């Protein structure tokens, strides 16, 4: 159990997918204008990340490895991720139309979020167990949602701040993200995996 907690902390903070490994940067900048939208995006991405890492692990260990088809991992995982995104889209559309209205455009974009594919591929190269793979996915999801919400909060503040003209708009957002990345590098060495 302690080891699983370490996996979560490691994936969420120490090796944060966005700020330390620089995966999934496009929704990080694209969906962080408002805190509400960022939370919804983090939630949807988290759902996809966790389910996709679980299913990818099963496909990998039950199908690809026994048949010696490891070279098809990339293709197979992209298929699985696409299906998981579609499933999330169905669920939000039917169970929470309001969330679907807010996220609408972003949900299909999760399919091209490289953090999702990154988690699935890293799981298969690191030889984790199914539970550990699921926790790794969940940890990555927590980390992604956390930094997305943090950046959205900072950007909302920056909107009201007296930003020098050359830095206004996206420039200050990129600088903010860079400083956040520096701060997250402070976690380096907390957990060794």
């Amino acid at each position, binding site marked *: 159990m302690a080891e699983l907690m370490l996996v979560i902390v490691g994936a969420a903070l120490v090796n944060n997918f966005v700020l330390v490994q620089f995966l999934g940067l496009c929704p990080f900048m694209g969906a962080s204008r*408002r805190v*509400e*939208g960022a939370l*919804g995006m983090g939630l949807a991405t988290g759902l996809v990340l966790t389910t996709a890492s679980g299913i990818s692990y099963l*496909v990998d260990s039950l*199908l*690809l490895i026994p*048949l010696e*088809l490891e*070279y*098809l991992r990339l*293709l*197979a995982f992209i*298929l*699985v991720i*696409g*299906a998981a995104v*579609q*499933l999330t889209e*169905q*669920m939000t*559309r*039917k*169970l*929470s*139309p*309001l969330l679907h*209205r*807010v996220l609408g455009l972003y949900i299909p974009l999760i399919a091209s979020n490289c953090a999702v594919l990154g988690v699935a591929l890293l799981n298969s190269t690191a030889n984790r167990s199914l539970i550990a793979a699921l926790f790794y996915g969940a940890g990555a999801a927590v980390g992604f949602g956390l930094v997305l919400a943090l950046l959205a909060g900072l950007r909302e503040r920056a909107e009201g701040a007296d930003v020098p003209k050359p830095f206004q708009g996206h420039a200050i957002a990129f600088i903010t993200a860079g400083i956040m990345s520096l701060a997250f590098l402070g976690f380096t060495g907390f957990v060794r995996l």
Partner: protein
Amino acid sequence: MLIGTVVLAGLALGLCAVLVLTDRLLPAGKDPVTDRIESLLPRIQCAQCGYAGCRPYARAIAAGEADINRCPPGGEETVRQLAELLGREAVALDTTLGSANMNRVARIDEHNCIGCNRCVPVCPVDAIVGVQQTIHAVIAAHCTGCELCLAHCPVDCIDLVARDA
């Protein structure tokens, strides 16, 4: 090579089957979006947005057909709340649609009213009382200042005055 093709095709087919199944099995949700949008509108049915009332306007917003800045009685505050609910950017109120607001009420000039009864049916909140051939009056507490009655008065005897005047 062959086995790889078969496995990938099988995987794709299997995932398709799962998605079709979940699409059939999940209950089709109600449409609470329209309800929540309508609850933010003033619901005085003034129709200045160009729709027949607040409910049709809410439905148009939910369907993405109408912008959120078409409600003069609601003002900037309603635009802000709608933007927050829908996760959009707040936009400036469309001032070309009218200037009605809840701070003013209609008042009928009793010296000029001819009791034609044309203003009574157009009032969305039934704030005008009076029958044919009698002088009409406005119940200020019910009037929402929507200006709909002004255009229907043949003798132009209805004015908008400040609510507490």
